[in-house]
């Protein structure tokens, strides 16, 4: 469904992605783990072109979306993103946050968008907060709104960029539960995360990235419990003792 080929990304002299090749299949949940600075977030952001990859290809249903002729908005309408810092629109209510994109991209009329938004807010457990403003919500609630906002575009896949890293520990669970439900419903997801428990339980595949490369990938039981590469072992052991 999404195939990344030979992706490279330099920030000036700094090579953040050196040669990344990843193939995501429909319905698959892929967790990307690795030390900070390994390029995980950049990898995600180069897929929907919040950053422009220096070279390489991203094939979406066989079409290279990094091609200048491709209208990236089409891809972004179909593949949503959830950010570490939620990035809700502060002057809009929860409901308006969720309704905005479907209405503006003309996928839905106002009434339809509202009905869908309320449904999605119910799904993430926040239907009572529809008229609240983001600043009135906890981090975990904001992130669930952000997920509802991404779902309002009825995406084919979702990209999660460390969705629980900015949350207080006791709020992480609610967000992970929502993501777990999405995975069960068959949503295609790429999740950059430090939540090893979540990766172990929900991921179909785990990708370990370091120094701009995919060092190791496979089933969670393989990568997380019996890593082959030395680099993966060191990372995971630090993680467990931390």
């Amino acid at each position, binding site marked *: 469904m999404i195939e990344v080929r030979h992706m490279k990304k330099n920030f000036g002299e700094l090579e953040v992605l050196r040669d990344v090749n990843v193939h995501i299949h429909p319905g698959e949940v892929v967790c990307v783990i690795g030390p900070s600075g390994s390029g995980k977030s950049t990898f995600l952001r180069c897929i929907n072109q919040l950053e422009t990859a220096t070279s390489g290809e991203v094939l979406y249903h066989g079409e290279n979306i990094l091609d200048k002729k491709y209208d990236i908005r089409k891809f972004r309408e179909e593949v949503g993103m959830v950010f570490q810092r939620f*990035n809700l*629109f502060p*002057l809009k209510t929860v409901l308006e946050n969720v309704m905005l994109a479907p209405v503006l991209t003309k996928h839905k009329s106002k009434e339809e968008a509202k009905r869908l938004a309320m449904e999605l807010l119910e799904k993430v457990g926040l239907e009572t907060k529809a008229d609240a403003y983001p600043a009135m919500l906890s981090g975990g609630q904001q992130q669930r709104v952000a997920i509802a906002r991404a779902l309002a575009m009825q995406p084919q896949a979702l990209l999660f960029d460390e969705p629980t890293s900015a949350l207080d520990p006791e709020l992480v669970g609610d967000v992970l539960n929502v993501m777990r439900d999405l995975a069960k419903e068959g949503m295609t997801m790429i999740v950059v995360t430090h939540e090893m428990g979540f990766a172990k339980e929900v991921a179909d595949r785990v990708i370990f990235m370091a120094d701009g490369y995919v060092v190791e990938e496979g089933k969670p039981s393989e990568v997380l419990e019996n890593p082959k590469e030395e680099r993966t072992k060191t990372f995971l052991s630090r993680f467990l003792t931390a």
Partner: protein
Amino acid sequence: MNIQFYQTILPMLFSGIKLTFMIAIIGILIGIVIASLCGFVLQSNFKIIKIFVEAYIWVIRATPIMVQALYVYYVIPKLIGLDFKANTVGIIVIALNSGAFMSEIIKGALLSIDPGQKEAAVSLGLSNFQTMIHVVIPPAFKIALPGLFNQFIISVKDTALLSVITVNEATHQAQNYAALSFQAIPTYTVLAVFYLVIISVLIILQKWVEKKMG
């Protein structure tokens, strides 16, 4: 002070006040348009246009508005061989001057919006234009508002300086009347009260708008 005084000063001042209002309102409105365009350019990547915009702001900030008025009224017409009416020059000067200062305010407000908001908007499939209109401008406007109102107030008061280029706005009319009638105390008192009242209206309006926007 007698009835006759008020019968002469008030109509004179009133015509001056009308002109003050007209120049201030039209000048500031054009200034807002200039500032919106320039403020947008300043925070964008249009390198060459940016140099021109920066030069314009530099010149306006580095010269007194009175000198700007004298220059546009007495020098530029000679250079380009065109004559402008004093009132037109007044509007141009207020527009160019307020436009430059408001450009900086608008640039600052646009830059203060968290880039994450824009990323969230475009990652939902919004165009850059839609992102600007629906996601960036509303909070930026809220941030810019106190600075913009401050400039409105300064610009209304700056119209008084246009008396040097013979614009018959309120201050110029008052000066004329005071010189003819030797009634300096009541004339300038009425003038001062006039400015106090309209600026107070602006200040109250600002508080009301800010409260309304929460």
